[in-house]
């Protein structure tokens, strides 16, 4: 049984302005199986984030196809994409990107409250469980400004997981944290992958983070190359 959860075919993206015309992604092919933990390495400016935005359907490719569980989403209507993004994907950004007005618990709950058939109570229960798993059970009502960097990033991870997404996309999840805290986040991601059979794609320039993943890719000249140990 094919367990390919995401498949990308001949993805192209170029940025054009008056001075420059840069081909960021060039006929890029990629696929990932359920439960895989994959990292994409690359220099800054190599197009890692663009690649992640394409998979996350935050940005549209110039050409090429993105299939989620066999479904071509690069031609889908934008309202469907919003729904897919909500149900299938969880994002973790370099800078936690929590909403400052909301408590940790509310931040985690937000994606669960969109377009879901779950009640607020159910979402709240699930969010509390997730935060407790992240050792943040005593921080539920704290605002982001009252949390440390590592705590914020753990809240962000809980937020990415609230809808039990097919894939978690992480963009330099530890890029802004010290070594010790990064270690905690790395362990957490690995644990999530192992215990929940969660598919995770990380984009990073940290070789340390890359070393704990199942597969490592290198993004150069708009294409992905598998790094073989």
């Amino acid at each position: 049984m094919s367990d390919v959860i995401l498949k990308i075919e001949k993805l192209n993206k170029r940025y054009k302005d008056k001075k420059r015309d840069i081909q960021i992604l060039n006929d890029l092919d990629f696929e990932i199986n359920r439960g895989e933990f994959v990292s994409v390495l690359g220099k800054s400016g190599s197009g890692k984030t663009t690649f992640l935005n394409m998979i996350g359907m935050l940005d549209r490719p110039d050409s090429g196809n993105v299939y989620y569980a066999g479904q071509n989403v690069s031609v889908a209507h934008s309202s469907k994409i919003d729904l897919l993004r909500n149900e299938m994907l969880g994002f973790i950004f370099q800078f936690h990107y929590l909403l400052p007005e909301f408590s940790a618990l509310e931040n985690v709950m937000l994606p669960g409250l969109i377009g879901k058939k779950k009640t607020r109570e159910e979402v709240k229960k699930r969010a509390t469980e997730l935060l407790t798993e992240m050792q943040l059970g005593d921080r539920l009502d704290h605002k982001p400004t009252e949390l440390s960097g590592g705590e914020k990033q753990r809240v962000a991870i809980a937020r990415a997981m609230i809808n039990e997404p097919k894939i978690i996309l992480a963009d330099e999840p530890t890029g802004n944290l010290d070594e010790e805290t990064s270690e905690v986040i790395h362990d957490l991601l690995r644990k999530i992958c192992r215990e929940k059979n969660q598919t995770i794609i990380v984009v990073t320039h940290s070789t340390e983070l890359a070393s704990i993943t199942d597969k490592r890719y290198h993004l150069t000249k708009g294409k992905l190359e598998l790094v073989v140990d």
Partner: protein
Amino acid sequence: MLYNFGNRRRVINISMIEFFIAKKHILERKRQSIIAILGVAIGVTVLTVSIGIANGLDKNMVDSILSISSHVVATKDGEAIDDYRELQTQIESIKGVKGAVPQISTQGILKYSGVFGSYVSGVKINGLDFDDAKTAMNLDKKIVAGTMDIKKPTEFLIGKELFNQLGAKLGDRITVVSADNREMHLTIAGVFQSGYYEYDTTMIIVPLRAVQILSYTGDTVTSLEVFLDDVYSAEKVAGQIQIKTNMSTRTWGDLNRNLLAALSLEKTVMILVFSLIVIIAGFVVWVILNMLVKEKTRDIGIMRSMGFSSKNIMKIFMIEGLFLGSFGIVVGLSISGGILWYVKDNAINQITNIYYLNKIPVEITSKEILVIVAANIVIIFLSSIFPAYKAAKLEVVEALKYD
């Protein structure tokens, strides 16, 4: 069925989360929210209070003009009317007519010597039947001193301001000189106050018989003064009078056309000018929402990445604009109610002197309040929709990069 039910619940959830976020934004930015609410409230207050007082002054003006002057004047184009009793019965049989008063209107000179020395002044002399005047125009209610139950036809009523200028007392005798230089001695029986300064300073009301003698007209009158149950049916009743009696008619509207036109122009200009304040209030909402959208650009990107649709985002900001606006309208209406209530019961001396009022009249209809509210909602809707649309149309990737 089951599917529909699920769908329905989803819709409810969506609107709840948008309210939830909008509420947070409003509460976290208390100062901006308060400024927006105050802006709208001030606009509503200025408009409501000024319309309320202007209406009141207008109504007061109309009321005082009509207090002792008739609603429709029926004449035979200046000819003396001798069959006036018959015409009076005919007119009074028309529906909506409270009463018709045969009247001679003429002018003369009033002479009086009293404590302030001798006094000479031109006056307007209205000769009419006091009994008719009581039933048709409730003249007895306007008497502030003395009585209108006269025993002799040489007793008369005088305007309050004129009475004060003369320094006269009830029962004093005055002399009236007609245009033909005929003199007549009359006794002050009562003092009336119409509320209209012009009348109260220059008018005397004299029994019909006395004026007929003074002006040599025999048993005739110059006009029939018609009073109506509803002053705004004057045009209609005037038409019926013309048909029934073949007399010429003029309504109070015709007679006061300039004044009414001036009042209406004044009110229109006032509403236009104060509407600008409402527009500025809308502008305040626009600026504050725009600021919010700008401040929240990255948060909008984050929300989009969670799966919020552009519609969700638009709704969040529309809810905020409309909530701030509606709250402002409610606050504005409450403040207006308070101000109008205070003004109504607490006369301000300077104003009341100029306008010859005891109290500042206040008059506002629910229709006018509805129009003010509706106009405000439209303006706030327009001021909210553009920032909200801007927020909804943000590119997710660009929004995420925004600092």
